């Protein structure tokens, strides 16, 4: 087996354990951090433990990847990124990791995943979300990905969303 690149994340790898208090903190913060001078104190009061414990648990969840990051999540539509294309690529399986790393490193790509093919309906194994102010900008960025892939690009297409049918947040119930 070839060594995995350091930056790849592995959702199937051992699941770090969370206790009931971690879950209470997740439930208390999954819709956002309190916008008060001492937000972690506010959470501590809400869940009934010391603020040091709250900060320690959040720090640990950041370190083990339960928390991806803490900060602002921009609404890309509001920032003018109106065109959002799901570009999908058929690349050789043995090169997908190497190529996924390259594509993920591009500024124009916000998510990059390997997913299974469903032949014959679906030959694509690499997904990259590309955002632009309009479709022309998305197409330009997709051409740049195709150039980067060269002969490894055995076929690709871009799926634009035409309608949001449902959008609710991902929620855990603690």
């Amino acid at each position, binding site marked *: 087996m070839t060594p995995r690149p350091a930056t*790849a*994340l592995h959702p199937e790898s051992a*699941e*770090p354990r*969370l206790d009931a208090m971690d879950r209470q903190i*997740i439930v208390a*913060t999954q*819709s*956002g*951090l309190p*916008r*008060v*001078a*001492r*937000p*972690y104190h506010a959470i501590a009061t809400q869940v009934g433990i010391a603020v040091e414990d709250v900060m320690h648990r959040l720090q640990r969840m*950041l370190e*083990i*990847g*339960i*928390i*991806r*990051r*803490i*900060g*602002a*999540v*921009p*609404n*890309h539509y509001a*920032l003018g*990124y109106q065109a959002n294309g*799901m570009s999908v690529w058929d690349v050789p399986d043995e090169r*997908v990791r190497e190529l*996924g*790393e390259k594509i*993920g*490193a591009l*500024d124009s790509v*916000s*998510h*990059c*995943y*390997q*997913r299974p093919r*469903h032949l014959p*309906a*679906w030959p694509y194994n690499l997904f990259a979300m590309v955002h632009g102010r309009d479709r022309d900008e998305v197409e330009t960025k997709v051409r740049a990905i195709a150039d980067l892939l060269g002969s490894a690009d055995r076929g690709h297409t871009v*799926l634009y*969303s*035409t*309608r*949001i*049918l*449902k*959008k*609710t947040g*991902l929620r*855990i*119930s603690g």
Partner: protein
Amino acid sequence: MDALDRAIINNLQGGFPICDEPYRAVASLLGTTEDELLRRLDALLENGTLSRFGPMYHAERLGGGLTLAAMQIPPQDFERVVAIVNAFPEVAHNYAREHALNMWFVLATETPQRIDQVIAAIERDTGYTVHNMPKREEFFVGLRFEA
């Protein structure tokens, strides 16, 4: 949106500190006051420029199931299937897309095992095949939008 709003959006997409007074710490880096930063964040959230502010959790690592699934639905039957699929509480997002596979949705479940049960139920209730496309690997991205 002025320069301070843009600085907030461009500099606060990660790395928010875990300390007693984090807004004060960030405000001084951005050359503003804690009160002004809090006021701006409230306004950016309220007007929809930011969809949220806080920790972003990694769904699969919380122990639940998560997948992307696609279906090919004849146009004349699309609305009926939308109603059936959306009625499942496990369907978090659902998009119509321009492709033969014209419906794409995200399933989020309390346990990984539940994914297969929900997919089987959707196939039974709609009469169409569901193509399950769970991610095999995620490649690191910066995930930054310039304001």
